[in-house]
């Protein structure tokens, strides 16, 4: 019984939140890594692209809600998601036309692209705040829990509750579907192959007749979809507030770099590494150990490695260690 309690407590406070958070980071990091692999720059505007996509989705969600449209137990936001993706895709293509295409034509250095993307970030930042405001917005509806802590406790007779939110379930399922679809696309379709070829060696790809503008356009479309999905899932699971998306940029880049920039598989692994390290290293093990150990050995302190204040420091410590010993990331990405 104690053993079960320990497992439940651990899943409730560490495993489930970390898996959901990891999936969101992985989707965000995939977008960053695709842009780095194909367009060859670090897109600092990614966090705010997520915010933009989530914002459009929220506006559509509100509209649907006001019309009485809903998906039963599932959040209405899923219905609005395709519209959010379309709007974000249009916005990304417009940005590319107005900003990045010029720098591609003059063959600007990557750092110039990065600076341009910071500019885009600030503009997007402003646009999102201008349209929806800087406050927190709630748009989640439908059933809140798949399993609620209280129900689980009653059902199992354990002391510990286990909560599994609908948004967490949707996040994990969607992440799996999206990642599978993306890998199938990259590995099995002609366009996907041409994207990978373009990423591996631009000159060779051009020689073999791949149209670079098309590759770029498709990359932006995929990135728009990934960013919007990541943004909406994050907003559903936590809450939507433009500022938090801006702050998400750090863990997302940490994930992408730890996994290996430019490597999609690495982005996913990196997302989970960062999420798990943030949650587990700062977790206070008192409760779990209390269940597992005999009474005489029960810890009186919190058994917390570092305080939760250092949550972000943990992911950056991992980032530094990885960069020191494996500069291309866990899964061989491009050198940073």
């Amino acid at each position: 019984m104690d053993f079960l309690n320990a497992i439940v407590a651990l899943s409730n406070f560490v495993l489930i939140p970390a898996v959901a958070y990891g999936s969101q980071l992985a989707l965000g990091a995939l977008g960053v890594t695709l842009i780095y692999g194909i367009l060859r720059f670090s897109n600092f505007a990614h966090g705010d692209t997520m915010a933009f996509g989530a914002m459009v989705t929220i506006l559509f969600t509100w509209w649907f809600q006001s019309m009485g449209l809903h998906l039963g137990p599932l959040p209405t936001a899923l219905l609005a998601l395709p519209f959010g993706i379309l709007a974000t895709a249009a916005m990304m293509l417009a940005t590319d036309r107005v900003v990045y295409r010029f720098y591609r034509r003059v063959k600007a250095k990557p750092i110039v692209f990065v600076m341009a993307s910071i500019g885009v970030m600030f503009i997007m930042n402003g646009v999102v705040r201008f349209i929806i405001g800087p406050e927190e917005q709630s748009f989640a509806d439908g059933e809140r829990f798949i399993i609620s802590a209280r129900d689980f406790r009653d059902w199992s007779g354990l002391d510990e509750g286990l909560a599994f939110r609908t948004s967490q379930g949707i996040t994990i399922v969607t992440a799996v579907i999206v990642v599978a679809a993306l890998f199938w696309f990259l590995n099995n379709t002609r366009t996907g192959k041409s994207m990978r070829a373009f990423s591996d060696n631009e000159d060779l790809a051009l020689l073999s007749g791949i149209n670079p503008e098309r590759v770029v356009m498709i990359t932006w479309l995929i990135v728009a979809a990934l960013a919007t999905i990541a943004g909406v899932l994050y907003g559903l699971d936590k809450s939507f507030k433009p500022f938090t998306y801006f702050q998400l940029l750090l863990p997302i880049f940490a994930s992408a770099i730890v996994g290996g920039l430019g490597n999609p598989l690495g982005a996913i692994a990196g997302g989970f590494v960062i999420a798990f390290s943030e949650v587990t290293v700062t977790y206070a093990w008192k409760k779990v150990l209390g269940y597992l150990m005999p009474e005489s050995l029960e810890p009186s302190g919190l058994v917390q490695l570092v305080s939760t204040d250092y949550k972000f420091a943990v992911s950056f410590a991992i980032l530094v260690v990885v960069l020191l010993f494996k500069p291309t990331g866990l899964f061989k990405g491009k050198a940073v």
Partner: protein
Amino acid sequence: MKKLLMASAASALMATGAYAEDIKMGVLLAFTGPLESLAPAIADGAELAFTEATAGGKFLDGTTVTPVRADSTCIDSAAATAAAERLITADGVKGIVGAMCSGATGAVLANVAMPNGMVMISPSATSPALSTVEDNGLFFRTAPSDARQGEVMADILMEKGITSAAVTYTNNDYGKGLSDSFAAAFEAKGGTITINAAHEDGKADYSAEVGALASAGGDILVVVGYVDQGGSGVIQGALDTGAFDMFQLPDGMVSVTLEERFGSDIDGSFGQIPGSPAAERFAEIVGGAFDATSTYADTGYDAAALILLAMQASGSTDPAVYKDAVMNVANAPGEEIYPGELEKAMDILAAGGDIDYVGASAVELVGQGESAGSYRMIEIQDGKIVNVGYQ
């Protein structure tokens, strides 16, 4: 002989009784600086008290009061000192309502008020350090020390029989100060703090924080944060994971947002915010002249009223004389005086009676002369914030 009698009678009157004069009062507030948005309402509150107290001509036989505003800034102690110096030497004020921020207040008190023997009543300086500062009995404040709410919280928990609490605080001076003062007071009363951990505002994900809090356990989670920031995130996480279902909510957490976000999920949780039963009466006498609910507007009114009442009680405008009367008029025994009753108070004092000034912020001076603070107790019942009394 008749003339002599007349003259001596007249001089006797001059010597003993107060006579009508025109005095000036300093209103030394941070009209510029980080708190400049609060200062005008405080000054308006103070000046309202001056006007009200002197309107009927009962204050010291018809003495009139002219307020003189001066800028204490909030962060520039040198500027505050210079402004106070000017008030005393150039304007010849008989008392000062101010200063506003704790740092400036301490500087003015040490460098100007004490050397000149000037009475200061601050409506807004809340630093616990001012509770023990050396002041020669010249310094009072109508705002409670930051440490006070922590004690009040510890008292409430003890009354409810809760002996172990987990604390999370927003990582800034407010959060740290309040959580520390609460933890100290709670432990002194025999309670156990299982964990006292910070959370950062503006994050969307608090699962790591909630995990640590849940592991530490406790009968209740004390959330020293902001309802529009991390505080709500932590509560949401704790509710979702079933870690806590009862919360203690200090002032930063009590707002309608709480009802909108959590509704009856947090039924039974309770909290407190500064507030007094007289707030409505204060709003009434203010009318629409300025925003009566603006922070510290009520304590500004009370600070000004206390000075004039102390002058009336001691029959003198000399700070060295009336400073000893401040505590008497502010506290029991005596007839309770609410906002809008200053004239009545003047009558009672003139007749040699006793008053217990309640004022807009339920003034009760403790210690060296600082407000004990009045808190409005709330409880969440059926998803609504319900008033359950004052303390």
